[in-house]
């Protein structure tokens, strides 16, 4: 049993990503969507925290959203995998429940 968590807020604007990551269980997945994709930036003040969490969580980012915002792959954490909307659907199906962190 595992959960897919989605986060759609910038971690520099709100505490949402922080709260989400602090409530995940080992083996859960986190998908950053919309403005949430800024949480995948490799050189930001949030990067170490996200990287540390990736040891026990699978962390994904919506590629259409990173492209929209001009975030090239080499700007993103290597520990975070890009998915498209079909991949989003697969993650929803694969995990037992989805929790949206709004």
């Amino acid at each position, binding site marked *: 049993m595992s959960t897919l968590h989605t986060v*759609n807020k910038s971690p520099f604007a709100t505490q949402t990503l922080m709260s989400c990551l602090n409530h995940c269980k080992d083996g859960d997945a986190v998908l950053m969507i919309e*403005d949430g994709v800024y949480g995948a930036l490799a050189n930001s003040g949030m990067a170490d925290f996200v990287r540390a969490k990736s040891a026990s969580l699978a962390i994904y980012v919506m590629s*259409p959203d990173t492209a929209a915002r001009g975030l090239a792959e080499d700007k993103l954490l290597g520990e975070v995998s890009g998915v498209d*909307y*079909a991949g989003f*659907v697969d993650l*929803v*199906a694969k995990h037992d429940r989805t929790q*949206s962190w*709004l």
Partner: protein
Amino acid sequence: MKIGVVVSEGPYTHQAADTAYHFVKAALDGGHEVPRVFFYHDGVNVSTRLSVPPQDERHIQNNWTNLAKEHDIDLVVCIAAAQRRGLLDENEANRQGKDANNIADGFRISGLGQLIEMGIQTDRLVTFGD
């Protein structure tokens, strides 16, 4: 798999209604069922047929109307949330003594029970909001 979807924010202002639309399309393309989309909070504003976005922007309400027709999706607008925000169908307008209504084709107004029912009857529930 049956996937229920909740949209909690209005069109254009937040990306939620766009992301939900792309998600539902991808779910249907992937062979899943999306029997119902429930519009709550400012999400009820998606259902207006009076919006006139600029020609070079997507038409969020039309996209939903067309997707629902093509795939027989039940687009439910929460009545309590809609009343506060000024979204009415013809019946409601008559009942409330209002001289106009503004709900688009393919959307129907109903109660919050439809949200709970969707939670019970689907295998997954995904919320798009702010």
